[in-house]
Every structure is written in C-alpha cells, then in structure tokens.
C-alpha cells in the first residue's frame, strides 16, 4: 500500500494537484518553527541580557552573612559563585577630607555575568576589567578623586583599614540593584572587610550571593534553596530585581507568542481549504477506482498513506524553511538588532513537526477521509454532489486542534481565550454578516452593469466559500491590526515610561540655606531641573490609634512600622493622579496627608484614617485626605506621603530634586560637588541607559516579528485565491469566448476581490477592537484604548490589499488561451 500511495503522490505531483496542500502545510510548519526558533533565540538573548543586570543568573540577597553550607552545595552542583557586600560608610582621603560612600566589596569571581568597567584614573577612558580590585586595593567613583583629593596610587581610609587606590570604577552590571544606595561608589575586595572593622552585627549591610551555571541545575538548586530561606532572605530573579524590565520582557514574550499562534490558525484554515479542494478534485478519481472494484477500505488506506507521506515530507521541508527564515532574518537585521541571538535548541523543530501532524490530522484528513464514501455512480453522472462536504464534526475537530495548539504554544489560557474571543467574533460575524452582505450586494448588482452583476453574482454564488474567504482575509487583516495596535500601545507605554530627557541625576540632602544658590547654579548651567522638594524623614508608628508592630515582628504583607520620606506641597505634584478623596485647599491649616495608593493598600489605609508618625522625637498626627497614584518610572522625585505646607513646614527638612544631565556635561558634577559639599548626588544615568537599551532591543524584536507576520498574511491571501483559481479560469475563459475583452474580465475580478476585501476589512476592524480590548485588559494588564484610525486603515488595507493580491494571483485568468482552459476542465 505504501508503494501505491507513493505512486499516487508522484502522479498527483506531476499533475500539480498537491501543490497547494503541500505549500500550505510547508508554510504552516515553516512559519511555526521559524517564529518559534526566532522567538526562542530572541528570548534566549534577552534572558542573557537581563542576567547582566543581576551580574549573575540567580542572586540570593540577605541582611546577614550567608550559610557557607549553601555555597558548598552550589559549588558541589557545579555552579559558579561570587559574593558582594554593600553598605554605606565614611571614606577618608588626604588630610581632613572625608565623604559618605557606598561601599561594595566583591569576591574574586565578581561579576559572573556582564562586564565591569574601570579606568586607570578619574577621567581616563573606560575599559573592561576581568575582575574587581585585588585585596589591599580599591577603585573609586570618578568624582571621589576630587571629593577626597586623592589620585591613583594614594591611599583612602575605610574604618581601620587603608586601601591603595588603583583605578576608577566606571560601570557595574548590577548597579541598578543599588537604586537607593546613597553616595559615590568605593569598590574593594571582600577579603579586606574584616580589617576595616566597620561591619558589625546589626550594621545596615546587604550580602549578595551570586550564582551562575546551567539553567536546569540552577532551577534544581533554587528549589532546594528556597524552603530554607529566612524571612529577610530573598532569591532574586529578573522580575524581583528589576520589575520594570521584567514586565517589559514578559509582555514582549507574550506578544511574540500571540503572533505565532495567530499564524498557525491562519495556516490551519489554508490547509483545510487546500485539502477540501484536493478531495473535490479527487472525487472523480475515487469514483473511477471504485467502479473498477476498489473497496472503501483500500481507498482509505491509499489516501491515508499518501497523506502520511505528505505530512512527513512537509514537516521536514517546513522545518528547513523555518530554519532558513529565521536565519535570514537574523542576518538581514543583524545591524539593527543590538543583541547577539542565542541558540534555539530543538524545540522549535519539534513544535513544527507536531504542528504538521496536528494539521494533517485535524484539517487535511477529514475531507480526504470522506473520499472513500464517494459514489462510483459519479463516473456516469458528473452532476452528482461530491461526498466530500464538511460536517459539523470536522469544524469541531478543527476548532479543538486550534485551541490545543494555541494553548501549547502560549501556555497561557488567558491569551488563548483572548485570541479565540476575537476569532469567534470573526467567524460568527464573518459567516453571518458576509452572507447577508453578499446577498444584498447581489440585489444591488441586479440593477448595476454587467461587470458589477458578474462580480457580485460570483461573490454570492460561492456564498459559503466566500464567507469563509472573508473570514480568512478578515483574520489576516485582524491579525495585522491587532499586532499594529498592540505594538503601538506597547511601544508607546514603554517610551512614556522613560521619555527622552528623563531626569538621570538626583540631588538629596540639600540644606535649606543652599537651596536658592543651587537652583541658581543649575539655571546658570542651563539645566532643566524638577522643582525642589522638601524632604522630612519620619517613621509611621500607628494607624487610627492602633500601634503597628515592627517590621521583624509583622507577618509577611502585614502593616508594620515604616520609615518614609515626607514632603509638602500646596498643589498635586506633576504625574500624580488622585484616585480617592480630594486635594486640599492650598492654604489649609488642617493636618491632612495624601497617601500613594500602593502604600495605602499595603498598610491598609483609607481616606479618613488617622496616621501617627514620628519625626525624630516629635510626633505628627494627620488624617488621610486623599489617595494618589504616581509613575515611579518617571524618575522624578516621588513621595509616598504628601502634607499641606502649613503642617510640615516647621519640621526639620532637607531638599531634593532631580535633573537631566547630558553625558557630555558630566564635568558639571565636579563643580556641583565642590560648591555644595554636603549635597549627596545620586547618578542614575547608567541605569537609565541600560533600561533604555533593553527597551530598544525589545522594540526591534517586536518590529521584526511584525514584518514576518506581514509576509505570512500576504502568503495566506494568495493561497486563498489559489483555492478558487480553477473555477475562475473556467469563468474567465467562458467570458472571453463570449467576447469579453481582458479589461472587463480583470475589472470584474478587481470588483469582486475589492468587495471581498472591504467586507473582510469591516470584519477585521470590529474583531481587532474586541480582540485588542480583551488582550489589553486580560493578558497585558493595560487599559483599553479604542483606536479610530484602525477603521480607515482596516477597510483600505482590505480593499486595496486583497483587490491587488487577488487580481495578481488570478492574472492567469486572462493570460491563458480560452480554448486550452475550456478543454482542460
């Protein structure tokens, strides 16, 4: 039987019958494995990139020294390890010079991931360092050279130890982790810590244990480690270490998966169409075989064998296509992609093979299996209906396959549900609405010229088939719209988070007397700074008269005593949005407070509650007047608690601000710290440029995937047109035999496809709005935003794209000699 199947395939191949089916299958497998490999490689690259932010693959953070048994366990499992220890301390330079520094002591292997940058002296060009400072030596932040009046080769004092300065530290992969570390960096070796004597039990320090190695081993180790952790110990992964970037990456991943699963749905439809066409064309052949004595069983075996061989060949070809698709893309866009793509592994090709199998079984097999039921009477009477019509069961099977495949690809039921909701709307509206529209279009065509009547009549005659085409085209356009819409809102949101000129330097501890002088100095340097905010340090002690437990005594997520920075303001600060209560009168004397919404939720605070705080030794009572939401990513000074000016103005305050400094103007900082030695400067520019770099990379990836999908959409459109090509060839030949010039035949085709495209466009826009709305709300945690421009875009794209592609794909209708067509068919 296998040989008979092979012979039949060979014969059909020469006859060109299998072309569309195989092409659709290969396309599906190629797309799925290509996108899968593409996203796998990007994800791998993004993941490696993100690990740079931790300087490791996994980090354990703790306020106490770590159990050395854990370290031995990790090394026993073949993981590489390193340690860092961070704390604020006072560094002593030449003579009387001293400054608060943020010390980071590192072990020999630091960093495990990413690059440490250093320079020989304060302003020499940066270069990559293989390791941190050796014992006895230290590297300083460039500004510390001026602040402490030291040069390379001099010594700085830290506690009881003297360290020789041998370089300037210019960049740490995990410096983002020290977001709130005050003071310029002093980096030293971990072995010198005991000699300094500054780290005592109870000191405010942060130990970090860094691990790197094989992902599987790491995951096992993490599972082993996590149950043993104390309350103040945390395992950091990208999400916990860098919530902003983690979220952006996760969204990007979902976006790519969405693109992949939509492509499969489209290909599935194309395969089903092609298989139906294949079996229609084989109905006569089967009738002949049956009239010659073939049984249903032998025909089932013959076609089953053929399809199995076909599936196998298509899977292999498709995987090759997928591989070359993604390889070509990475090569083409190598310059634009700031990442080095990682390895894809075998999973994409496994995904491709399984996809091929499912597509063959769920989409191609049902109509072909029904061939065995073809009546041998068809040999004599061609006008008998073919037995290959689809049943409800076929659609159910196809639907189940789509759902399972999408679930498998995305491993996210919410995403699957959102996409399916969009598709359900397309199918329901498509089949129902398209039939209705086609019918009314037909009535209109009756009164119009012959060209229109022909086009609209042709649309209506293939009513169900065209409704299906509308659905397919609608899906393709919807997919483009969804991707465009989601991409736009994703990119917008990311860009809004960190616009150009985001403040990248913070100044805190500004003495009230210095504030006006500082503002003048900044204005003179032409710097745009945020307003100066007063800052009062306070501790929340009780809510509504109930004392809060200390942090150590409170359970996880329970309200507890808490240190916060307070500020006062007559008006609602920029970027803040009131979510409950009311903002106060600017001159109010009442003791009110406005609380950040997340803080309020954590502490169980509501409008009207009374908060009892301690500023130094002085108590401060205030009633919660309003709750605010704010953008932490804005890099502007943000405060959990804001008071009316009258309430806070006689408490001791320092001032703070943030400003944007161009990288070329870094020297201004030296002047600033010299003129205002008591002010603490926090530099965020490196962190911000790292975050921005990641966002740029993700955006590039998203745009690449969109390009892949655009090509897919066009291919599926062409495949759809091909399915009806035989009929069109015949009709074109008849028309031309009757004396219609080419231009009229083409005109009718153009009208037909444009109208089809218009319907598809209407459908796509409605469905895309629903789908995007569901996606934004359910899967992407964004707000639903309607997009009016999708209407003209969708309709225009539908009519022009499908009109052009349709006429282009059907151009043979006017080029083949009519007699040849009429004789063939």
């Amino acid at each position, binding site marked *: 039987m296998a040989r008979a199947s092979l012979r039949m395939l060979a014969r059909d191949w020469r006859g060109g019958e299998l072309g569309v089916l195989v092409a659709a299958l290969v396309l599906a497998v190629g797309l799925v494995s290509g996108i899968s490999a593409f996203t796998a490689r990007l994800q791998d690259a993004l993941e490696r990139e993100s690990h740079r932010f931790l300087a490791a693959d996994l980090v354990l953070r703790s306020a106490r020294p770590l159990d050395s048994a854990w370290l031995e366990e990790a090394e026993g499992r073949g993981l590489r390890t390193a340690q860092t220890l961070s704390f604020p301390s006072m560094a002593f330079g030449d003579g009387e010079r001293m400054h608060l520094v943020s010390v980071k002591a590192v072990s020999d292997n630091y960093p495990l991931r990413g690059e440490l940058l250093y320079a020989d002296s304060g302003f020499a060009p940066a270069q990559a360092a293989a390791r941190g400072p050796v014992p006895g030596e230290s590297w300083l932040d460039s500004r510390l050279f001026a602040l402490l009046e030291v040069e390379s080769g001099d010594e700085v004092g830290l506690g009881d130890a003297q360290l020789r300065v041998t370089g300037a530290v210019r960049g740490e992969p995990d410096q983002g982790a020290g977001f709130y570390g005050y003071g310029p960096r002093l980096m030293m070796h971990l072995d010198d810590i005991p000699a300094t004597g500054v780290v005592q039990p109870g000191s405010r320090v942060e130990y970090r244990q860094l691990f790197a190695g094989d992902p599987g081993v790491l995951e096992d180790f993490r599972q082993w480690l996590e149950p043993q952790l104390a309350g103040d110990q945390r395992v950091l992964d990208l999400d916990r270490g860098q919530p902003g970037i983690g979220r952006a990456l996760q969204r990007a991943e979902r976006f790519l998966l969405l693109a992949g699963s939509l492509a499969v749905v489209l290909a599935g439809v194309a395969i089903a169409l092609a298989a139906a066409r294949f079996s229609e064309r084989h109905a006569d052949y089967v009738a002949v075989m049956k009239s010659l004595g073939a049984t249903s069983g032998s025909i089932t075996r013959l076609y089953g064998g053929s399809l199995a061989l076909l599936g196998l060949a298509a899977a292999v070809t498709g995987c090759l296509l997928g591989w070359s698709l993604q390889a070509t893309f990475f090569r083409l866009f190598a310059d634009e992609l700031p990442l080095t793509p990682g390895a894809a592994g075998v999973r994409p090709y496994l995904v491709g093979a399984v996809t091929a199998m499912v597509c063959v079984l769920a989409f191609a097999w049902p109509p072909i299996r029904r061939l065995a039921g073809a009546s041998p009477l068809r040999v004599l009477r061609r006008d008998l209906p073919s037995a290959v019509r689809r049943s409800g069961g076929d659609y159910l099977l196809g639907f189940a396959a789509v759902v399972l495949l999408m679930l498998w690809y995305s491993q996210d039921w919410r995403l699957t549900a959102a996409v399916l909701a969009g598709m359900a709307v397309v199918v329901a509206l498509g089949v129902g609405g398209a039939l209705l529209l086609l019918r009314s279009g037909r009535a209109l065509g009756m009164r119009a010229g*012959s060209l229109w009547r*022909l086009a609209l009549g042709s*649309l209506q005659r293939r009513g169900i088939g065209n409704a299906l085409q509308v659905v397919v085209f609608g899906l393709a356009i919807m997919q483009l719209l969804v991707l465009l819409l989601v991409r736009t809102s994703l990119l917008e949101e990311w860009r809004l988070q960190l616009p150009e000129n985001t403040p990248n330097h913070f100044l805190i501890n500004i003495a009230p007397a210095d504030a006006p002088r500082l503002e003048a100095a900044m204005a003179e340097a032409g710097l745009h700074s945020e307003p100066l905010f007063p800052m009062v340090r306070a501790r929340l002690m009780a809510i509504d008269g109930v004392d809060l437990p200390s942090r150590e005594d409170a359970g996880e997520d329970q309200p507890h005593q808490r240190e916060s920075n307070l500020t006062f303001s007559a008006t609602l600060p920029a970027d803040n949005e009131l979510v409950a209560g009311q903002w106060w009168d600017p001159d109010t004397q009442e003791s009110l407070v406005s609380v950040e919404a997340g803080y309020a939720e954590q502490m169980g605070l509501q409008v009207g509650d009374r908060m009892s705080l301690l500023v130094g030794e002085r108590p401060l009572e205030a009633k919660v007047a309003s709750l605010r939401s704010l953008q932490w990513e804005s890099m502007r000074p943000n405060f959990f608690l804001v008071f009316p000016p009258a309430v806070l103005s006689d408490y001791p305050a320092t001032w703070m601000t943030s400003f944007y400094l161009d990288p070329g103007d870094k020297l201004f900082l030296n002047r600033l710290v010299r003129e205002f030695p008591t002010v603490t400067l926090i530099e965020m520019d490196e962190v911000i440029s790292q975050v921005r770099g990641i966002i740029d990379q993700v955006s590039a990836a998203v745009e690449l995937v969109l390009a892949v999908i655009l090509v897919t959409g066009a291919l599926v459109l062409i495949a759809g047109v091909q399915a009806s090509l035989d009929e069109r060839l015949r*009709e074109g030949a008849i028309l031309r*035999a009757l*004396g219609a010039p080419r231009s009229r035949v083409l005109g009718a085709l153009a009208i037909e496809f444009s109208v089809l495209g218009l319907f598809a466009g209407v459908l796509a826009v409605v469905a895309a709005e629903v789908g995007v709305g569901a996606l934004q709300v359910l899967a992407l945690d964004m707000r639903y935003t309607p997009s009016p421009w999708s209407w003209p875009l969708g309709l225009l794209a539908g009519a022009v794209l499908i009109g052009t592609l349709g006429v282009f794909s059907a151009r043979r209708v006017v080029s083949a000699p009519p007699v040849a067509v*009429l004789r063939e068919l």
Partner: protein
Amino acid sequence: MGGGELEILKGITLEIKGGDSVAIVGASGSGKSTLLGLLAGLDESSAGRVWLDGEDLGALDEDGRALLRARKVGFVFQAFQLLPALTALENVMLPLELRGEHSAGEQARRFLARVGLEARLDHYPRQMSGGEQQRVAIARAFAARPAILFADEPTGNLDTHTGERIVDLLFELNREEGTTLVLVTHDTGLAARCSRQLTLEAGALVGDTA
C-alpha cells in the same frame, strides 16, 4: 500547440459559406476540436491563416479577437459552460451586454421563451438539468444574433432523447436566424443533418462532401 515537433493540423484549406451548416467529424484526437478553436478565434495557430467574416484573425490580438467574437460569433459547448454565478436570464444577457445592447433583458427573455424556459429565468445553472442547461446555452448563443455559431459536441453530455431535442432546437433556430453553423460531433446522425461534412484523420482533411 504542443511544441514544434507535433503537428496537429496539416495542410487544411477550406472555405465555409454564409448560411451553411457544416459538421466536422473524425476519431478522437483527429484534431477536430483544435480546428474549431482556430476557426472561432479561441486559439492562435503556429502557422497558416484564418479569416472570419472577412477579418484576418492572425492580424488581431487577443482583445481584438474577443471583440470580433462578441460581434459575430456564438458558442455551444459540450459541457454547457454557463457561468454558475449568474441566473439563466443573466447568462443569456451577458453576450448582449458585452455588445453594449440596451434591450438585453427583453431579447434574452424572448430567446429563453423560444427554448421553452420562460418559467426558469431566475434559476441558477446548478438548479437545472443538463438538457435545460444546454437550452440556456443555445439561447445564449442565438440571442446575440451571431453571424456564425460554433458548437463543440453539443449533445456529448446528454442522453439520446434530450440530445435529439437539443439538435432539433439548434437547427430550428439556425434556420430562423439564418446563422452559419459549424459543429464538431461524433454523432453520425447529427452530422448527416448538416449540409456539409468535413472528415478529419490525424490532423488532415480526408473527406469533404461539398
């Protein structure tokens, strides 16, 4: 046609006069359908020339031949070749509209009544039997009042009884309209009803009763 090596028709010279009815007969593969296609301007010959009602088909391009067909030629095919998207009435109206006639609907109705289908104007081809479809095709062919009508095995897909009725109709209309009729057939009975029979064998004209 089939490349330089294969000669499908060779050395055929013939003239068909207006008002004649001519049957082209011959075994399968003798080239009779090819000859019909060339005569009707549906195909281009690799050598030789064809004149249709005084016009040299070789001097016209595809669209030029289409215009000529619209003005002067009607067809009846073995497989009916009705446009499935159009009703019986619309199918018959089509060639009239292609010629830009204003009373297309009226004329089409008249010819459909002539072939006995006045009750089935709004039916689609798929809703009709083979005989009815061929009658629509005949109405379509005559409605445009062609100078010459080509028929390719007009009874090939029909049972004997229906076939006979279709042939009767064809000749009746041919007489009424004074059309030149050229048909290809296997059916010796049908061929005998024509005033002239051309016999083809392996691409060569071996018999001509004229």
